[in-house]
């Protein structure tokens, strides 16, 4: 499992663009928002948590079809399926690799982009915490979507149609934690819900993804 994880990480690092692309996209989305809504600092600081969450979500979405599509094309997914590793573990490792290459940099970069959007000082901790808690769910849900569409040529657009509705609860609670944190309100309830969704998805969805992959490899 560790070998597989390292292999995926190395591929993402060296295949060019995979690692930094999500980050660059996150930066671009965040920079575009003030151009769209105007440079009013008060307005920006009010919408900053939500914008950062949506940016992170879109950046995640962008890299989803890299999780499985390349391995599907060159046949290494078939090899993984016949390896003595259960499919659930393969899928989990893939999701973990995706999170390390996409989610984690987003979490780390979010405070810097918060500065650009005039995020209130009290919001930084909660923004980072909510992203750290929520992005694994995005990766796991995204892996499920990638597994669904892996057999379809040019499934990228379909992938986003399938995955975005599934992202709704995570986005709502994640952005709510960041928003309430920024405004100095109580965050316990949405934080608990976000954690529940995230851990629930991590615990259960790999099984669904594995089933789906087995069907696709049949």
């Amino acid at each position, binding site marked *: 499992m560790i070998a597989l994880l390292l292999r995926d990480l190395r591929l993402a690092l060296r295949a060019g663009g995979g690692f930094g692309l999500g980050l660059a996209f996150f930066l671009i989305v965040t920079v575009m928002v003030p151009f769209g809504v105007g440079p009013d600092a008060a307005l920006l600081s009010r919408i900053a948590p939500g914008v950062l969450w949506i940016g992170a979500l879109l950046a995640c979405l962008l890299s989803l079809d890299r999780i499985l599509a390349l391995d599907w094309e060159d046949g290494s997914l078939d090899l993984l399926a016949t390896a003595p590793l259960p499919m659930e573990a393969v899928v989990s490792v893939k999701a973990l690799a995706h999170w390390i290459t996409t989610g984690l940099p987003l979490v780390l970069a979010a405070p810097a982009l918060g500065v650009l959007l005039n995020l209130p000082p009290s919001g930084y901790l909660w923004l980072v915490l909510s992203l750290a808690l929520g992005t694994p769910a995005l990766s796991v849900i995204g892996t499920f979507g990638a597994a*669904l569409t892996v*057999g379809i040529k040019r499934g990228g657009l379909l992938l986003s149609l*399938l995955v975005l509705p599934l992202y709704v609860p995570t986005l709502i609670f994640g952005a709510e934690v960041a928003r309430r944190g920024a405004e100095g309100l109580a965050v316990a309830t949405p934080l608990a*819900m976000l954690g529940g969704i995230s851990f629930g998805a991590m615990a259960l969805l790999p099984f*669904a993804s594995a089933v789906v992959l087995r*069907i696709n490899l049949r």
Partner: protein
Amino acid sequence: MSLWEYANPVRFIRTTDIVLPWISVLAVLCLVVGLIWGFFFTPDDYRQGSTVKIIYLHVPSALMAINAWLMMLVASVIWVVRRHHVSALAARAAAPVGAVMTVIALATGAIWGQPMWGTWWAWDPRLTSFLILFLFYLGYIALWEAIEDDDTAADLTAILCLVGSVFALLSRYAVNFWNQGLHQGASLSLDKEENVADVFWLPLLVCIGGFVLLFLALVFLRTQTEIRARRTRALLARERQG
């Protein structure tokens, strides 16, 4: 003799062929009677005026939008557990009907909301969750269309339906939570079942019955079509080989 015998396509077609004309006629009858009764022979509401009459379209379609998804969920579980092709096809047949019902519910809601709330759209939890439901329908239909192999498509959409149901439910409550802090007007969600007086209640019931029958008729018809289309394809394939 058990219920599962109807999972045989031949038997399914034979049975529904008998039932279908009756259901269709009854559906049309219910809809015509219910809608005319509702639109022309009920008094205007003292506060909402004549706009109240949109409930004869709005409530039944909203009801069917949710129930169609539930039916797809049940059919998907049956397909996953017992692998009866008819049930997978019925789920597939129900999806576009459910999507259309969702659109009807959203559109009639907007038409009603404009004069009543002064806006076509509000990010009210119920409206929002219906929009999300519509997105789920779109994704489900798109996945069916995108996959060529029939059994693979049935398997994948069934699992999407299962996972999607969990997330749809989550979204429903997440949305509820999300809007309470902002502007949850109590009058927005107008609990019709409790508010509606007897004069409105009976025609509404007839309309709901009409929508249920209409849904059944459409699903039966679309499932039959799908079975026959598959049979044709199989025959053509055999001919090409032989």
